[in-house]
Structures are given as structure tokens and as C-alpha cells.
């Protein structure tokens, strides 16, 4: 199969046959002056249209609303409407520029092709695919690329490698002490190039650099992100399951918003859905083992490996068909693939991927 033949068109048929979301695929061009989005939770007004690079973003009437630019992002329960493009009715002041736009001669122009979101007077255009932009508090999975003086550089699928400082990690054994010079020299003993870490975004610097932290309970947050805070514990787990774990890279925009990033799936795997698009799959470790620091080099059974492989292929096929990735969708795809009796390696074939994706979407809609 040539790479440039896609099965995208079939997806439209699937969606249109679904009856649970009426009016979603209203693709007619409408002249609307005011748009009301039926959303229970948010009283902000969203204009969710697609615009292409270079196009003028028309300025709709200003409406009162709540919410910040971040909240007014994608997903949620509102319906996308298509609106025809008109010249701007009002000239927007510079403070109303959002990401994905720029001002030219007093007119706001889109610089990416994507969804237009308007909250209050802020107009943002979010492209469908983007490198990970970063949001404070996100859990991300990253790979160490460099070990520097007192920090590690982590590749988090962003436009710059993020920083993980020695002072921001929990030292092994759960000790609470200041990092000394010896610790700096021993950084490689903790984390070296190529290691995977599951960390939290602490801060976003002005130039877009992400600062990461691997502490738990720092701000009194309940660590519902199991094992995320303790780096050492995580490392132990990692060593244990090194031979059966896998990392899948998908576009960050496909990862569903979720408070909890680490999930223990019923099939016997723990999946960390990094907000940056890196998804880490590992076999579930029994709780007793995890609390101790004993390194267990047991042979990982074939079934466990198959599970991991299947999960990984399911993730890949969901990403390929641009289906949002969440524990539900992954489990549905997993179950569907077992139901349809596909071998793990069959899931790599494009037609099989399509079948499983369709079936998964259908069962999710029920």
C-alpha cells in the first residue's frame, strides 16, 4: 500500500451514521451573526471554526463571558459550526491577540490552519497538530538527552528540550535534604542519557523552555498520579519491566484532557498518557513490590509482552485515525481487537487498523 492512500473518507461515514450527536456534522455554510454554544459548564462564547493560514479572522461581536484562553481550548461538549469567512467587523486591539495569529496593519490574521477559539476578546487559532506547547501541572513523559551541571535536559516533544533540575527531584530513599556537590557529580547514577522519566511541568519560561519537577506533594496536591512523585520508585519499576515496556509517540493534540495521567488498565498494564504525546506502557507491578526497592529481574512472561504489544498497536492505530486517546478509547480498541480475533502483529496492517478503528468508534458511541 502506498503511503499516500488514506482511509480517512470512511471515517466520515462512520461519524455521520452516529445518532448520538445530532447536528455535529452540519457542514453547510451559514451566515450567522451570533453564535451560541450549548455548553453547560462554560458560559464563554466559543467560535469553533476552522481557518487556514493567512486568512483574516473575522471579528464577531464582543460578548461577555468567562474563562481564560486556556479553558477555551479544544474538546468539550460544544458543537463545531462552520461559518463563512467575512471581513472583520471590528478592529481588535493588540491585547486580544492569541496564539496562532498575528497583527498586520491593525488586522488579525491567522498564522496556522486550525480551529478558531474565541473567549472574551481573545481570539486563538489552534492547529490540529503542534509540538507540545506545555501547560503548568501537566504530567509528561520524557527522555533524558543530556546531563549538565545540575540539571538534565529532557526531550518532551516540545520545541526546546525541557529542563529537570537536580533540586526538583525527590532523591532516592525519600530523603529530604539539600543537594550537595557530590550529588551533582553523581547525577548520572540517578538519571543518565536515554532514561525515561515521568515528570510534571513546573513552570514555563519566557522563551518557551519547560521546567520540570519530579516531586510529589509539593503544593499539597494529592498524588493521585501513582508513583509519579518518587523517582526512585519509578526507576525500580522501570528496571523491572525494562524488557516489556514501550513508549509510543503520538501528536499531543490527540491526548484527551485528563486529571489523572497514569492508569492501571484491566488488561494488566499501566499506561501513562503523557500530555506531550508520549505514552508509556508498562506491565502492572503488584503494589507490594512497588513499595520496596528490591530490583526484580524476573523473566517477563509472553502473555504480558503480548498485552503490551497489543496496547501499543492499538495506540498507533488510534493515532493514525486521529481518534482521541484516552484510557476508554485504548481499552475499547484493545477489547475490539481481541473480539475480532486479530493477532497482535495483524494490527500493523492498514486494513486491519481501519476495521478495528471503526469498530472501536462504534462501540464507544453506544
Amino acid at each position, binding site marked *: 500500500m502506498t503511503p499516500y492512500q488514506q482511509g480517512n473518507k470512511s471515517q466520515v461515514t462512520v461519524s455521520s451514521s452516529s445518532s448520538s450527536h445530532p447536528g455535529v456534522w452540519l457542514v453547510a455554510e451559514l451566515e450567522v451573526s451570533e453564535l451560541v454554544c450549548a455548553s453547560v459548564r462554560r458560559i464563554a462564547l466559543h467560535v469553533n471554526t476552522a481557518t*487556514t493560514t493567512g486568512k483574516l479572522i473575522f471579528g464577531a461581536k464582543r460578548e461577555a463571558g468567562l474563562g481564560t484562553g486556556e479553558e477555551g481550548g479544544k474538546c468539550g461538549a460544544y458543537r463545531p459550526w462552520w461559518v463563512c469567512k467575512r471581513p472583520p467587523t471590528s478592529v481588535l486591539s493588540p491585547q486580544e491577540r492569541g496564539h496562532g495569529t498575528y497583527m498586520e496593519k491593525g488586522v488579525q490574521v491567522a*498564522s496556522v490552519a486550525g480551529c478558531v477559539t474565541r473567549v472574551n476578546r481573545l481570539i486563538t487559532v489552534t492547529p490540529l497538530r503542534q509540538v507540545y506547547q506545555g501547560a503548568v501541572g501537566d504530567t509528561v513523559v520524557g527522555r533524558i538527552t543530556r546531563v549538565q551541571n545540575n540539571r538534565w*535536559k529532557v526531550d518532551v516533544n516540545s520545541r526546546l528540550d525541557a529542563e529537570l533540575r537536580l533540586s526538583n527531584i525527590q532523591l532516592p530513599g525519600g530523603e529530604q535534604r539539600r543537594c550537595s556537590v557530590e550529588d551533582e557529580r553523581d547525577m548520572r547514577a540517578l538519571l543518565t542519557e536515554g532514561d525515561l522519566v515521568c515528570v510534571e511541568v513546573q513552570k514555563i519560561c519566557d522563551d518557551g523552555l519547560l521546567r520540570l519537577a519530579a516531586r510529589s506533594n509539593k503544593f499539597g496536591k494529592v498524588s493521585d498520579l501513582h508513583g509519579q512523585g518518587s523517582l526512585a520508585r519509578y526507576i525500580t519499576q522501570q528496571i523491572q519491566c525494562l524488557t516489556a515496556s514501550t513508549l509510543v509517540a503520538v501528536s499531543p493534540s490527540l491526548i484527551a484532557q485528563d486529571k489523572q495521567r497514569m492508569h492501571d488498565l484491566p488488561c494488566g498494564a499501566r499506561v501513562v498518557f503523557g500530555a506531550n504525546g508520549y505514552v508509556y506502557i508498562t506491565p502492572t507491578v503488584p503494589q507490594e513490590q512497588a513499595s520496596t526497592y528490591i530490583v526484580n529481574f524476573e523473566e517477563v512472561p509472553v502473555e504480558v509482552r503480548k498485552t503490551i504489544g497489543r496496547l501499543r498497536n492499538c495506540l498507533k492505530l488510534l493515532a493514525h485515525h486521529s481518534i482521541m486517546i484516552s484510557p476508554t478509547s485504548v481499552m475499547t480498541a484493545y477489547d475490539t481487537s481481541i473480539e475480532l480475533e486479530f493477532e497482535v502483529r495483524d494490527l500493523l496492517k492498514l486494513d486491519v487498523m481501519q476495521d478495528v478503528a471503526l469498530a472501536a468508534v462504534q462501540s464507544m458511541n453506544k
Partner: protein
Amino acid sequence: MDVISPEGLRQDGRTPTCLRDISCRLGLYDRPNGSAYIEIGNTKVLAAVYGPREVRSLSKQNLDECVIQCEMSRIAACQGERVRRPRDQRTRALSLQIAGVFHAAIRKTKYPGSQIDIYVQVLQADGGVTSACINASALALIHAGVELMDYVVSCTASINKTTPILDVTQQESVTGCEVTVSMLPNKGSVVSLDCAHTLHLDQLDEVVDLAMEGCQQIYKVMSQEVETYLQDKNAVMSHQ
């Protein structure tokens, strides 16, 4: 053999101001941040964009804006004669040109300290190779979500005796000149102008004008494809 027959048609049956069939696709590959494929008649080009990402060599890092690099390569079977080296001086010069075009079009100040790599692969070359490469790269950049000032569209034009002809094939360009114009269609400004073989000064105006008209036509096709792609993807993603 005349480029334009007495009936006013070209070798492939087109009128002098007619573009070849264009088809393009966004998002072929998962691995690169952005990918695209374009077919302009028999010219087929694949483009992949990696970035913006951390610079590979610190010596090239620019802390004010991003670094843009382009590498163009041709497969051995892209032309009638076997191409000896996929990357030679010619492709390096064209790569520089493509990178130059996107230096103007990408909003570089948005990505300080980062690097954007554009990889272009020519699968089949039948005239208008540079413009196909630029069009494919533009689509790939849009797919990657890189901020651009505007679309970048490119087209070739030539002149045959006194008739300007649009979108020349390899055969047509051998006998005459080949002018490649890249522009930002919504702004109307030119980002690249290139002329191979001899052209008379007086004819330059009409050839460039024709090429710019061709660019606008190509823009329509490209933006249509991008909008279709957006609709499809947006529909699926916000469905969840």
C-alpha cells in the same frame, strides 16, 4: 517539434495558460511533525517537516529566531536518465533556495533557539521541480502547525516565441527558459524569483505575471485540500 501546435495547444493538450492537474495530500506519516505530498502533472514530490525542535548543533543556534534547514534529494529514477547522486551540487543549491523561501514565510521570532528541518524528496521530475518542492514544503509546514505569515505557493512559467506559457514540463523547459515564482498569495508579495535559461528583458513582465496568476490557482487547490483535511480531522477529534 513545436511547443505550441498551430491549433494553439501544447504537447499534452493544454492551452498555454492552463495548469497541469494538481493533487495533494496532507499528513502521510506519523513520525514527522508534518508531511505532505503533491503531484503537479507528472512531477511528484514528498515533503516532511521536523520541528520546531531543539537545535542539533549548538554552533548554529540562534537565540533570536529559529534556524531553518532544508535538504532536497532526488531518487535515482526521477528522470529519464538515472541520477547519479541523490544529493549533489544542484540539489544543494535548490535546498538553499527552498530554505530561503521559508525564511521569509515562517514566523521565525516565534521559535527562538529552535530548529525546523524540511526534507524534500523528489520522486518524479517533469518540470517545475523547485515549485513543487516549495508547495509540498508549505503544505507540510501547515500540517506541522508551524506559524507562517501566509501560504507559500510557487509556479513556473515560460515563454515560447511570443506566447507566455504556464507550468512548463521538462520538455518545454529544455527549449526555452523556466521562470519560477514563489509568492504569498494573500499578500501578493514575491518571496522567490528564479530564472533558468535565457529570457528577454521585455518578456519578463508578462512571464512573471502569468506565473503569479498560476500561483493563485494553485493556492486555491492547496487551501481547498487543507480545509478538507481540517474538516475531517476536526470532526473526528472533537467528536470524542
